[in-house]
């Protein structure tokens, strides 16, 4: 919820339009067996104070007329959710960091991280050696190898996740969509392309696509949006997420000179900004913010 509050102001804060669209999130129900599950979920979330509600088929049709009405029984709706352009978000943060005085090295592989005698960190990146009081490891699926460099094993599993984007289309809908059971999500980008992903996440560290998953995703989305059948797909790609055994991130101190924030298990984009803010506070004050306390690496001791 803290994260949701952060996004609307980010474009102004970063000085770059991150194409944030806050039009809600619909989790679409296509079969009766899941309607009950969704309504139970909604009840539980409402008890926690979340603004979520059930939409019947007519409500969904009114909200997103582009969807095939016959395919949808209803949806769980959370009006405060949104979507964002991940590239713009990253570039915005990068540029803001540079403006604030951060140096950058892009395209260099970190080969060694060591703790210096003085208690600081020394990082070897290509031909460069960088010294700092603290090193923060936030390298997604690459984090496990970096933590290993420091002698700390983390139970991270790489999962390749695939998505596709169509050529630009006139505006169809502004909401973010998912399904229950999971397996498909989609949104229309500011640029106009329908971006969708899902299918099986495959346990591997290589980011290429697999024809079977592309076909599966295509089958799912064309049932919900039949008009896409004749629309050109521009590209399909894979990305690797770091998953933890419990699906929650690892945000912890590795040593006197190193912090880690990884294992977002597919939720890195939504959580990245808020976690970054708390990490910064941690670095500034030297005290771990209470909000981050559930995410210690110690909870996986048994798994290693």
């Amino acid at each position: 919820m803290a994260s949701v509050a952060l996004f609307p102001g980010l474009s102004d804060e970063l000085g770059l339009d991150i194409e944030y669209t806050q039009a809600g999130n619909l989790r679409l129900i296509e079969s009766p067996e899941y309607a009950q599950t969704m309504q139970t979920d909604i009840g539980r979330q409402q008890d926690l104070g979340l603004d979520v509600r059930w939409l019947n088929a007519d409500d969904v049709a009114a909200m997103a007329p582009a969807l095939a009405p016959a395919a949808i029984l209803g949806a769980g709706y959370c009006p405060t959710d949104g979507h964002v352009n991940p590239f713009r978000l990253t570039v915005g943060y990068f540029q803001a960091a540079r403006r604030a005085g951060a140096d950058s090295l892009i395209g260099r592989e970190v080969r060694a991280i060591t703790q210096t005698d003085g208690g600081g960190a020394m990082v070897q990146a290509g031909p460069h050696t960088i010294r700092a009081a603290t090193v923060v490891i936030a390298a997604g699926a690459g984090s496990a190898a970096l933590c290993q460099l420091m002698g700390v094993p983390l139970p991270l599993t790489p999962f390749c996740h695939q998505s596709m984007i169509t050529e630009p289309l006139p505006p169809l809908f502004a909401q973010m969509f998912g399904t229950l059971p999971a397996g498909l999500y989609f949104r229309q980008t500011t640029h106009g392309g329908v971006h969708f992903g899902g299918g099986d996440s495959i346990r591997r560290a290589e980011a290429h696509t697999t024809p079977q998953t592309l076909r599966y995703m295509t089958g799912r989305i064309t049932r919900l949006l039949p008009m896409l059948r004749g629309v050109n797909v521009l590209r399909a790609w894979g990305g690797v997420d770091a998953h933890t055994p419990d699906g929650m991130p690892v945000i912890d101190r590795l040593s006197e000179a190193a912090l880690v924030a990884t294992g977002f298990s597919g939720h890195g984009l939504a959580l990245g900004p808020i976690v970054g803010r708390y990490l910064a506070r941690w670095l500034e004050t030297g005290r771990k913010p209470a909000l981050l306390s559930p995410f210690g690496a110690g909870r996986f001791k048994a798994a290693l």
Partner: protein
Amino acid sequence: MTEIIVIGAGPAGVAAAVTAAEAGARVTLIDENSLPGGQYFKQAALPAPASLPPTLAENFRQGQALLAGLSHKNITFRGNTLVWNVTPDRTVSLYGPAGPETLAAAQLIIAAGAYERVMPFPGWTLPGVMTVGGAQLLLKGQRLLAGQRILLAGTGPLLQVAGVQLLEAGAEIVAIAELQPLGSIIARSPRFLGHRDKVKLALNNARRLKRAGVPVKFGYAIVRATGENEVSGAVIARVDAAGHPRPGPESALAVDTVCLNFGFAPDTRLTQLAGCKHHFAERFGGWAAITDDNMETSQPGIFAVGEVRGIGGVEAALPEGRLAGQVAARKSGYRTDESAGPTRRAARRARALVGQLNTVFAVKPGLMTLAQDDTLICRCEEISAGQLRAAIREGITTLNNLKPWTRAGMGRCQGRICGPILAHLLAAETGLEAQSAGQFTVRPPVKPVPLSTLLPQNNNDEVAHDK
């Protein structure tokens, strides 16, 4: 499973298909175009007119001779069919008249060819500015002359070859702006050794152009094209050894058509998707598939021939195609009459000679200064040189980082046009070698296809995939 699939029906692919078929193998030859021949031997779907301009007639005759071999009963030609994905297990995804389809092959020969390299300048997106190859394809495939007053600009022998073809077809060639100074071409003339036919042709072309009064300006580049809705003028200027325009007078030319060619770039999209290893081969047009002496890539059973191995022209394409056809047929259990030895030597010799020649007509880094900050580099997404330079100043050093940062290369052409330019731009701005910019990671489909192409083809795909 098909015995042998050949992708691309240009000179290399046709040579491979015919050789393998004659050895007894069953071959499926696939091409996106309706007719075989590739771009070099472009065939027209129109009936041949009684008289073609002589150089076009000669190209047509040579093409017909090569393509006659495709009538072999072992060859199935599938035209109008795009191969939009290849996986390392030699499965190809097709989109064609019969709808979506996947085929698997025991041996896969990739002869995907090349595309033209173009350098940007103000006005290069105006209608009427086109590639030299585009104007040639209109002549060969459509029997259509693109313009009346034509400027050809860029570098390489193709400018004069096309100049003669357009002249014969009835155009006025206002000028040919060749980037290399004549002195440097002459100084490098030893590199023409072994190219007797080419030199003869080049001298012949030069004489024809001279007789027609065509000014061939060596050491010149086009610096801008002008016009409202289509090109109506062009400005050329002298450039120095590094390709920077020299201070001094420019020549403004009244033209209705500008044709550009700065060499070619290998189309390695399919070999990249197949997981084959590539290397940066400056003299062969940049990133190219690596093969062994038998044209086999780092992926067993996947061959790369012709331009995919690096720009080698028809001279390298034909023996390389024959060699791959021989080897693939033998791996499929067919005995070929001739030993592969002589073909292998012919392929190696042709490749080495062309490599020498290519170095005479290299693109020069100074040309990148022609692109003003408001000049578009990525034509699809309309990303300007200024936007890209700003990103490079932020520390971006590779094509794969420029793409999400700026959207350059994210459009429909998938970076085919801007990719080689971006490598030059990165090199110019950072001082790094062009090869350090890397290649764009290739994403399927290699060209946009309707989503229906990817629909499940059997029930196996219908099972839930949630982990």
